[in-house]
């Protein structure tokens, strides 16, 4: 259990060492497409991690920062729906996978304006009061799941329910890295299971 926790620290909390000490900055804007989600899957030995990024248009129906109580509640509700991983992901039983952690939160898309150009890393730290920042009109929801699989070599398919939960979602681009190699897949409502390499 402890090792999985450590592993999740490795994945999700790596220090942003690469950024430190760069002399020049330029504006960059990540692509953001409604109806399409990105799912990254990585498995090493018994640890399996998935990271799903959805546009908030698909999760909430709005992308701006919450402006009233209702919208704040919607965000909270979406967070708990996405964290309820047992209803979202099904593994082939032979792999014997159990959840070790599941969390989801709303993220404003990074955009770098001159007034807080060096606040890049701060944005990550101050997510809870992101309403204070000037934020992009686009935002995302990100869910992170970690599992422990007792028979990782038996892991063959993962069925996802995201299309049922978020009807406006059309496709999920999957990138996967396992002990057997790397692979890619594209999921749709009709083809909603990942086949691992």
């Amino acid at each position, binding site marked *: 259990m402890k090792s999985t926790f450590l592993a999740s620290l490795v*994945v999700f909390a790596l220090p942003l060492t*690469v950024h430190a000490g*760069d*002399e*020049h900055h330029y504006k960059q804007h990540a692509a953001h497409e409604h109806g399409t989600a990105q799912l990254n899957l*990585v498995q*090493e030995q018994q640890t399996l991690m998935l990271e799903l990024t959805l546009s908030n248009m698909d999760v909430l129906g709005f992308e701006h920062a919450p402006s009233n109580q209702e919208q704040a509640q919607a965000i909270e509700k979406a967070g708990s729906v996405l964290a309820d991983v047992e209803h979202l992901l099904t593994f082939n039983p032979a792999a014997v996978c159990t959840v070790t952690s599941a969390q989801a939160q709303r993220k404003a898309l990074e955009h770098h304006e001159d007034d807080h150009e060096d606040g890049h890393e701060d944005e990550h730290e101050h997510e809870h009061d992101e309403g204070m920042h000037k934020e992009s009109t686009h935002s995302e929801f990100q869910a992170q799941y970690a599992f422990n699989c007792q028979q990782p070599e038996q892991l063959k398919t993962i069925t996802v329910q995201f299309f049922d939960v978020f009807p406006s979602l059309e496709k999920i681009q999957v990138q996967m*890295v396992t002990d057997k190699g790397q692979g*890619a897949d594209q999921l749709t409502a009709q083809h909603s299971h990942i086949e691992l390499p």
Partner: protein
Amino acid sequence: MQKLSTLLYLAWKSVLNRRLAALLTVLSIACSVTLLLGVERISQTARSSFISTVAGTDLIVGARSGQIQLLLYSVFRLGDATNNIDWQSYQKIAKHPEITWTIPISLGDSHRGYRVMGTTQDYFEHFRYGSEQHLQLAQGQRFSGLFDVVLGAEVAQKLGYGLGQQIVIAHGSSTVNTFVHDDKPFQVVGILQRTGTPVDRTLHMSLQGIEAIHVDWQNGAPPRAEDSLSSTQVSQMDLTPKTITAFLVGLKSKLGIFSVQREVNNYRGEPLLAILPGVALQQLWQLIGIADLALRVISSFVVLVGLLGMLTVILTSLNERRREMAILRSVGASPWHIFGLLQLEALLLALFGCVLGVIFLYVLLWLAAPLLAQHLGLWLVFTGLSHYDWIVLMGIALAALLIGILPAWRAYHHALSDGLTIRL
């Protein structure tokens, strides 16, 4: 059972009686079977050789462009980079705590149509292909001096180079070179073993070697005679490269792969792109897969044409065989026997076609294997018939039975109406 073997015997004898037409039918089916299975074999081989070009590399980093473009120039030596990476950026990223090794590569020059790649000793240490195999030297040693070059197997073989050969590197990648770095010749110190990957078609040298041949160039043009520096002068200079084309990355743990990828993609120094080679390979294969599908569709149609040819042959033979049928009826065959006889005939022709087709396939593969290996770097593996092959063959037999219903049904009706007397 007895009846079936009698029918089989009769069908066999009847086919033998029309052996020329039957042989041609079998041949046309056989050729179509060879084509269909052959396309599958080649596509399988191409796919596995494709997938095996790079193994054990977690990420490839280059200037921001497209995933596939980066893969093509960094791994397949096809096309050119849009931009180079600053040496400082490379150094900074290579120090990332999650990264265990990096292989810098610098492309842009060539020798008689083969790409020249600048790299470091880490290339021999960490680069893997196929099922995690390391590069092995067939002759000589790794490059160590400034003007040392290690050849890929195909380069050495095609150009007939051995150890100690002096070669001159050309500027750019076209085969007709205007600018040649003939003031600084390189010496072949090693030849790699054949890998069946683009490594075979590459000349490898140190990054400093690449830097050395360009150090006296000004604004991308060759130096004037009085400005040019000799090999000895150059070797005393600081030859740290200013830029590289791309680098391959190996990670401590796969679990960190997506966060490292994200960090590189968000790197604020210059726009970079980190790709997962396996993912990019799959995307590229999906593109190529359309051509692959087209080939399969075409060869399926060829099989269909073969079977229709068989239908024509059997149908046209029906009229001349009315007498044969009448004789069979006179010795006690029911109309259903006639039906079965013709079905069996179709099946027999198709089965012989399949068997002959498979024999053709293996003969052809055996003949083509050395050529494919030599010209395309594709290594055919001789395996038995796969699950897919069996399904295809069964499908053909089934299709033959279905198609055979038409002449069988006609013969059945002839048999009923003609009885023992034929009104021709």
